[in-house]
């Protein structure tokens, strides 16, 4: 009898342990001790100066709300994309988290686990109305808004003013002039006048998205970027890949072995005269070196059918989990308030979508120039890896690396893209 009792105890103990295992991740917004509310906060800036900025903001919010405890977690870019997917599939989303716009946001929304923000925005128009209207688009699907835009961004060629002046090179106004300028720089002794960290797939995708927007008519792009109608048969894609290939010939052998950060440091050190970068990186370049730089948009491609002056770039913002407590909404408003936005741009140098957030007080002339370019852009082209399905983007990104190392041809890449697109259409 004793043995049977023993047996029962073992069974009970192990089942209790298992029960504990399975229920451990249902902590979303639950009170942990009495009336303390725990908010899980997940962002993608484990690096400075943003990490400290958010750490300080969290401390400030906790001070204002003694009943709130914020758990913060952060990982970089690519890891963030992967981790958030794992979290959403396990129904383990943090209460407040960063999101890119367009397909990235759309994918998250399709899980049905993201909070709809229309009511929250309607209740507090003083807050929601203070955000630049146009930036909501990337977070709005079927008239429902799921995210609050915070940072705005654009991508342009940064160039070293001093090197350009020394060699009498004008800011190029067309793609041919850009190639001319690069050739001249090469002659002047810059072995790699242009550089990029091609180990980062997203850096390749940014190039591709812009180039396609220059050479292919917008209605064709819109049709192709939609997974239900995408065919990718326009000859412009081949032309676009050829342009990309031509540009990589100015990047040298090094580019496929370094990442974007290394490329940026090369630019900041004055070793490389031109680099395609985001306005968000202005601060990093200024911190890393003392080169004087200006920017110009990816120039018009003369025989292209696309939009010659559109700017590649899209906002990033915050999303809430469906199960987030009301305090998380408070925290969201706090994160996107005018006051936070001002301090943010002052501390980080990055531009934001809050009206009054970017002024002469909060940012330097270079950043203000960039801000004006964003506000003035004829159209905005979303980041390519967020504009198309990831299986298409992946073919272009890996294909871009293979193009740079002479491993493939534009035609081969397009055949793979068309195959992937056909698969998506049939889903």
């Amino acid at each position: 009898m004793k043995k049977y009792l023993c047996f029962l105890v073992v069974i009970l103990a192990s089942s209790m342990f298992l029960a504990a295992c399975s229920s451990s991740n249902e902590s979303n917004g639950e009170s942990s001790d009495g009336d303390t509310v725990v908010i899980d906060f997940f962002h993608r800036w484990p690096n400075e100066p943003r990490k400290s900025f958010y750490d300080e903001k969290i401390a400030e919010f906790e001070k204002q709300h003694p009943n709130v405890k914020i758990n913060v977690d952060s990982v970089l870019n690519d890891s963030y994309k992967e981790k958030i997917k794992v979290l959403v599939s396990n129904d383990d989303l943090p209460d407040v988290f960063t999101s890119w716009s367009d397909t990235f946001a759309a994918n998250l929304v399709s899980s049905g686990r993201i909070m709809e923000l229309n009511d929250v925005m309607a209740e507090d128009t003083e807050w929601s109305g203070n955000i630049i209207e146009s930036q909501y688009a990337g977070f709005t699907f079927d008239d429902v808004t799921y995210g609050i835009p915070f940072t705005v961004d654009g991508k342009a060629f940064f160039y070293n003013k001093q090197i350009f002046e020394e060699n009498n090179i004008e800011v190029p106004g067309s793609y041919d002039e850009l190639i001319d300028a690069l050739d001249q720089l090469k002659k002047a002794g810059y072995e790699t006048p242009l550089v990029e960290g091609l180990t980062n797939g997203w850096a390749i995708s940014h190039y591709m998205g812009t180039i396609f927007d220059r050479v292919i008519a917008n209605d064709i792009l819109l049709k192709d970027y939609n997974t239900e109608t995408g065919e990718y048969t326009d000859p412009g894609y081949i032309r676009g890949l050829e342009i990309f290939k031509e540009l990589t010939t100015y990047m040298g052998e090094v580019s496929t072995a370094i990442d974007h950060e290394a490329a940026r440091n090369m630019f900041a050190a004055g070793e490389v005269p031109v680099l395609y970068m985001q306005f968000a990186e202005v601060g990093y370049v200024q911190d890393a070196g003392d080169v004087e730089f200006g920017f110009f948009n990816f120039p018009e491609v003369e025989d292209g059918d696309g939009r010659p002056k559109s700017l590649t770039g899209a906002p990033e913002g915050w999303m809430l989990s469906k199960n987030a407590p009301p305090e998380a909404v408070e925290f969201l408003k706090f994160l996107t308030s005018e006051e936070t936005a001002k301090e943010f741009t002052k501390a980080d140098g990055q531009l934001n979508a809050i009206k009054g957030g970017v002024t002469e007080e909060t940012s330097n002339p270079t950043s203000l120039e960039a801000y004006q370019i964003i506000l003035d852009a004829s159209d905005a082209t979303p980041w390519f890896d967020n504009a198309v399905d990831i299986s298409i983007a992946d073919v272009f990104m890996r294909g871009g690396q293979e193009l740079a190392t002479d491993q493939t041809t534009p035609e081969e890449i397009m055949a793979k893209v068309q195959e992937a697109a056909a698969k998506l259409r049939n889903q």
Partner: protein
Amino acid sequence: MKIKRVKITPILFMLPTVLFLGLFIYIPLIQNFYNSFFEFSVFSQTKEFVGLSKFKQLFADGVALTALNNNVKYAIISVILQVFFALVLAAILEDKFFRRFAQVFRVIYFMPVMISISVIALLFGFVYNPQIGLLNSFLELIGLEQFAKPWLGNSTTAIYSVIAMSQWQSIGLITMLFIVSIQKIPKDLYEAAEIDGAGKIRRFFSVTVPQVKEATFVNLLVTVTGSILVFNEPYILTNGGPGNSSMTLAIHMYQTGFVKDDMGYASTLASLIFLLSAVFALIQIKVSKTGKEE
């Protein structure tokens, strides 16, 4: 009554292990096979039954073939360097002449084993760096600058650079296992061989190699299955690139599932990885007839 009691005690002892093995190994394994018949994404809560179409996709998948090819390269090089070379190394370290320095060398060889693979991968990122990397600087120093290249950014050298790093890390562990095994060999076998006039090389092949058969088997199994499962090293160093040139099956599976969001096909790839490692393990168990020590 007594018989029943005897029967229940071993069950009680085994129960927790069986329970946990089942829960964390066998159930997920079966679930994985089951999932490979479905089309589903991490974002959706519905699954669509697609039969064997994911397996058909596998046979037409060029990337999987590249990956498999890389895994095979990994396995062959690892067996030669880690198993064969480590055995030679262990024999040298256990040689009478080397005994005095053996301690120092053992520590040197074993050191990399204790460092986390992420740290090592970052370290080797610096070693392979095309501009400031140790490797290229060294080649330039000894006048071989024509061989300097962007090791990880070149599609022909990327996979070998990754494999080389792996060998550097793992050889110490395998050597250690062989050393332990060599130390168990009775001394009189060597003495008898010496009296019979066998030289050092003859003694190595006639005494050491047959005596460490069990250890060789374990090491072979560890390296070959390790090569099929390899993920961390290429993922951190190259992410499978440039292009797909240093892709392995595990990275392909991971990216299919968590980057391209095709969980069904990722499950199929996982099944392939499982089958490959299981088959290799079975073959090795069969061939080496282990467990029956003579």
